[in-house]
């Protein structure tokens, strides 16, 4: 306690020197926090934009042969057998055709046949009317759900579209629902909001394909994507006995590659930040050595008055530890503020991670203790006579 007070007093007595000592640590700690937090913030935002693209989705395509087939019902059965892994399923049947209402033709609208879960898989919500339903699938109903742009362009608004008639390749469909606008920035032909969904069963019938060849299956947990892929592959192999007849690809594989890249990057940056902390440590040692030399006389007086080695030692170690702890705290504050500021500037939500704060604080205190030890030891071993004689 006494040594602690003495250390504080000594630091306060040499504000400039103490600040310069701390500066290295402040910069070191702040840069570690900034690097780690910004990289992880970047990663999170990347994750988010990827999950918009559906990282939980696994794309499956199959080529049915005369003897070996997997149809939609088989896939639903397969899903029911693995409820802990998989969440939703939809066949995806692209309909090549013209969309007409009255005498006008829409050329950019994407038309496809999907299950009632497609809305959930895409993460969309309804603006007006209802989503496609299971009974639409079972009954091969001629109903359609359309995008906000399509409804707006054709009928003026989402509400006005409900119940209207459209034609796809000459077949009449009734609009039962309109999806909420997705693209906040632009509303244009061929954009995110220009689509028509019809029941996959109906789509298959119009196209006369019979079997669906492409599916999207979602996993409950993104981390299970790889396991999901394996399960699907195993299942398909058990049916086809030939892995050329199907392909399974998880969207998250792209994310994995990205993660790996970011991981390497953050390790590299962390290494650089680590070096700066080490340099800060050498700085602390340097200043402490100067401080010992500068205060040789003080040490001599203290020893003459009966300070034991341990007392002198403790005084200097505590001084170094307190200096680096204070530097560490200031560094955490600076690093956190900078993290948020930079995050705001580059438009990413960056919060200083607990791990980074803990790590850099631990390292800074550790540096203080380790690099403070040597000068402290030197101080403690000074001969009181020589020390008293020095000016």
């Amino acid at each position, binding site marked *: 306690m006494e040594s602690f007070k003495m250390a504080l007093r000594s630091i306060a007595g040499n504000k400039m020197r103490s600040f310069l000592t701390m500066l290295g640590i402040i910069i070191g700690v702040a840069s570690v926090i900034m690097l780690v937090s910004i990289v992880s913030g970047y990663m999170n935002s990347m994750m988010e934009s990827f999950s918009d693209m559906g990282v939980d989705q696994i794309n499956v395509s199959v080529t049915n042969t005369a003897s070996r087939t997997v149809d939609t019902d088989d896939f639903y059965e397969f899903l029911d057998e693995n409820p802990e892994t998989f969440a939703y399923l939809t066949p995806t049947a692209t309909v090549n055709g013209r969309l007409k209402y009255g005498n006008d033709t829409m050329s950019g609208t994407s038309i496809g046949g999907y299950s009632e879960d497609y809305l959930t898989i895409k993460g969309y919500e309804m603006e007006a009317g209802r989503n496609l339903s299971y009974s639409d699938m079972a009954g091969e109903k001629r109903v359609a759900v359309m995008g906000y742009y399509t409804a707006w362009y054709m009928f003026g608004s989402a509400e006005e579209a409900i119940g209207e008639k459209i034609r796809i390749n000459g077949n009449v469909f009734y609009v039962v629902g309109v999806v909420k606008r997705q693209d906040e920035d632009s509303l244009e032909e061929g954009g995110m909001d220009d689509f028509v969904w019809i029941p996959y069963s109906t789509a298959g019938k119009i196209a006369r394909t019979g079997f669906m060849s492409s599916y999207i299956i979602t996993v409950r947990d993104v981390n299970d994507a790889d396991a999901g892929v394996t399960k699907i592959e195993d299942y398909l192999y058990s049916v086809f006995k030939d892995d050329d007849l199907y392909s399974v690809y998880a969207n998250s594989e792209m994310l994995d590659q990205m993660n790996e890249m970011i991981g390497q990057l953050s390790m590299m940056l962390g290494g650089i930040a680590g070096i700066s902390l080490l340099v800060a440590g050498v700085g602390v040692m340097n200043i402490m050595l100067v401080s010992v030399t500068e205060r040789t006389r003080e040490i001599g007086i203290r020893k003459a*008055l*009966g300070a034991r080695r341990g007392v002198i030692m403790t005084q200097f170690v505590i001084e170094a530890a307190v200096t680096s702890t204070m530097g560490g705290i200031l560094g955490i504050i600076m690093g956190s503020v900078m993290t948020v500021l930079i995050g705001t500037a580059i438009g990413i939500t960056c919060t200083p991670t607990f791990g980074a704060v803990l790590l850099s604080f631990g390292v800074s205190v550790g540096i203080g203790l380790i690099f403070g030890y040597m000068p402290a030891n030197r101080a403690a071993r000074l001969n009181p006579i020589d020390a008293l004689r020095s000016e």
Partner: protein
Amino acid sequence: MADISIAPQDDIRAKDTPLIRLKEIYKIYQMGDETVHATDGISLDIYRGEFVAIVGKSGSGKSTLMNIIGALDVPTKGNYYIDGHDTSSMTDNELADIRNRRIGFIFQQYNLLPKLSILENVELPLLYQGVKEPERKIRAMEELEKVGLKEKAKMRPIQLSGGQQQRVSIARALASRPSLILADEPTGALDSKTSREVLDIIKKLNDEGNTIVMITHDPTIAVRARRVVRIIDGKVDFDGSAEEYGKL
């Protein structure tokens, strides 16, 4: 570790046991090819209540002697007993304890810590003794009162005159209630008027029963003691009363 737990004032021994006993003290330095005998077989007994001036020119070996008496250094050969404890084979920390509890230093340059207040300076020996607050502050304050600087307790050394600073260092020397007060050129940095004042205080301390050893190069200061020991070339050249010394 030497037994140093007994407070000096509790040391009640026969009056004829010396407080300090130097037996054949040699301090030998090797300087290049040359061997220097800083002290060359000095034997000296100092009893409780004495006021001894050790006088000698620079290079005479009196500083080496003072370092050994002050337990700042150990002799190359010979034995030094203080309060019956032989310092010759003590470790660093044991010597520190001897200095802390048995010796009160008064230095020529006062040697006050500039960043501490007057009171904190006086507290230092008590701090190293492990005396806790508030007792430490109270005792330090008492000592400051004795040297008439109670009002300046909160000030820094630099705010005081030389004479006042030396009085602070006297208060500091007294704070641990040592067996021996060791004054190294206590007036060396003072003008003649303040020198007299400081010497008067030291003399008064002796009158109150404190044992004092004063190192000086100045014969006119030395005669203020009761006994004078003159060192020449590392040997005791004269040892007698101040009156006898004055007649030399």
